[in-house]
């Protein structure tokens, strides 16, 4: 009985710990899409922000690698009773009420500079950008991980929960 349980557990663990490389891209994107709304739970915005109809605005600025995956991931998600709204933008223009902004594409640095003083959690991806937002995705050990730039977050007027910081690969404290 115990042996059976052990072999079963081992099988599950193996399946979970070693995802198939062929599906890596899609799977990684899905994970990243799932992560984006979750970040909101560990970030505190200044009281003046987030006044947009009682909803969290999740912006994708520049390229959109997620497609419908992001829409799926925010479905049913709530932070402090607020639902999510996805807004896709091509530039920083119109990004003033974004709470979270996933910035991707060749103009990433420009967008980040433009949002530098806004209370917005900027997220970038190492796969396509050398520029770091407050949170910067990376693949480590075949898993989606992230860096956190706490100094930049402070510049944006955001406070990041230590619980989230604990999950980061590295934290830039300035």
């Amino acid at each position, binding site marked *: 009985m115990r042996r059976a*349980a*052990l072999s*079963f*557990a*081992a099988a*599950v*663990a193996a399946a*979970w*710990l070693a995802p198939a490389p062929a599906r890596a891209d899609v799977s990684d994107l899905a*994970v990243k899409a799932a*992560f984006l709304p*979750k970040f*909101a*739970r*560990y970030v505190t915005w200044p009281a003046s922000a987030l006044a947009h109809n009682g909803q969290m605005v999740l912006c994708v600025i520049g390229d959109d690698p997620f497609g419908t995956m992001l829409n799926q991931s925010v479905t049913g998600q*709530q*932070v*402090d*009773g607020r639902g999510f709204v996805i807004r896709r933008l091509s530039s920083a223009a119109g990004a003033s009420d974004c709470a979270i902004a996933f910035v991707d594409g060749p103009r990433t640095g420009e967008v980040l500079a433009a949002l530098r003083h806004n209370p917005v959690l900027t997220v970038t991806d190492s796969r396509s950008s050398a520029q770091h937002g407050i949170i910067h995705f990376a693949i480590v050990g075949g898993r989606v*991980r992230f860096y956190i730039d706490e100094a930049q977050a402070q510049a944006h007027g955001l406070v990041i*929960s230590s*619980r*989230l910081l*604990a*999950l980061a690969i590295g934290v830039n404290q300035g």
Partner: protein
Amino acid sequence: MRTFRKSLLEWRSAPAMIFVVAVLILAGCIAIIFQNEATFRAGRDRQAQVAAQVLADSVSAAVDFGDPLAARQAVDAFRENPEVRYVGVYDRAGRPLAAYDPLGDHRGETLAHLMPEGPSGYRVLLPIVSAGQRIGTIVYSVQREAVSRRLTRYLTLGALALLAALVIVTLGLAQTALHRANRELSERAEALGQANELLAEQIEERAKAEEQLRQSHKMQALGQLTGGIAHDFNNLLTVIQGSADILTREELADDRRKRFANAIVQAAQNAAVLTSQLLAFARRQPLKPEIVDLCELVGGMTELLDRTMGERIRIETDLDRATPPVKVDRGQLQSAILNVGSNARDAMPDGGTLRIAVSPAPSGAGEPMAAISISDTGTGMDPETASRIFEPFFTTKKTGKGTGLGLSQVYGFATQSGGDVVVDSEPGKGTTVSILLPCSESSIVAQPVAEDDAVPDQPRADILVVEDNEEVGQFAETLLTELGHSVTLATSGEEALELARGHDFDVVFSDVVMPGMGGLRLAEQLAAEKPELPVILATGYSQEIAQSGSGGRPVILKPYRLATLSQALADAISAKDH
């Protein structure tokens, strides 16, 4: 009875109370154990809850982001706690994200398949909540305290409680036993007291009975004594009465008159001996001690003894001339010898030998003694009789035949003189009575005064006679007037003192025992007022003189002879004149 019943009640209720107290203590201890256990469990459960809650909070992000490494870090923090048996972090679907499983019981199990917790553990299942949503589950198991350890803990407590109960029971029992012992002791003391009272009562009753017995003995003895005395006196009185009757006859010839008068004198002398014996027994007889040579005294008595003993008894004497003189009353010593002699005669109804020996007595460390040993060849006595012969009124003779005073006079005289009497007798072998008398330091032997009936010629004297007894007073007055003296009679000491103050008498002749002022006090008073006036005292019996003497004054013993009285008067008057 009440205290007993009470004590019984105490004795019965005490163990019950002790038992109740012991049970209460045990119950208290058990209650404390349960309370302790409950508190301990509650505390431990709360602790587990808190630990799980803290873990849920800290691991929420890791679960949220599906970060098993972070979750494992959080879980691994519990390695430090040895009581933690399992910590599991499960995601929303119930799949294990990270686990600390030191026993390896739950490896890889999903939440739904998690094996139930055993009785030795305590498990907390707590949801991991993030932003109001349940994102996973914490499973937190701690080990209950090991049964053996708990048992040890409670056994220790139980043992302590048992020990306390035991101590109380022991103390209680000891106390009860002590109480009982005390009570028994007091009961015994009470019983002892009662027994003592009873004994005291019995002793008292016995003393009363003895007193009554003694009283009846005394009355019996008194009867014996009065019987004997009455008999002896009646004999003497018969002689006196008869002689006096004859003397009243006118035609009696002179020689016969003299014979009857002499018979009266003789009877009176015998009567005087009898009364002196009585006084000797009473030890109130005034002794006139003088230096006496025993050999001479006994030698002078042989003729008298010969006559007293009768023809069938031979008298022998063995006189050691080296015997030192003694200081005793000559007349009493003679009486004593005669008394022993007459008893010896009565012990030899068929005749025998009376042997009188005088010798120095072998004395121990005490003063030197002389002994007069009087032995007979008579019937002897058994030890019981020998031990009683000195008892007053003890006699082996028929009632009325003896006073029972003879030998008691001997004993009284000897002891009063500072000596002793020793009796050596055996039935059939005769009796030896030894009178021991202390030797005198002086060797000058007084010459016995000649019993001279001749009345010396005297000059006429003025005499004050003091006598409370009217008959005796008148007799003395007649006697002295007959002798040619002038006599004044006073009936009391006070009256005599008055008379003496008003008139110069040549001599005072006073009785000693009188109501009011006695002779001795009168003499002292007169000595103070008229030191020249001689006083002669007369007494038949006086405790005062026997005890303290007469103060150097001449004392005449009643009954006195005419010659004695006139001699004393002559001595007093001549002493005054010179």
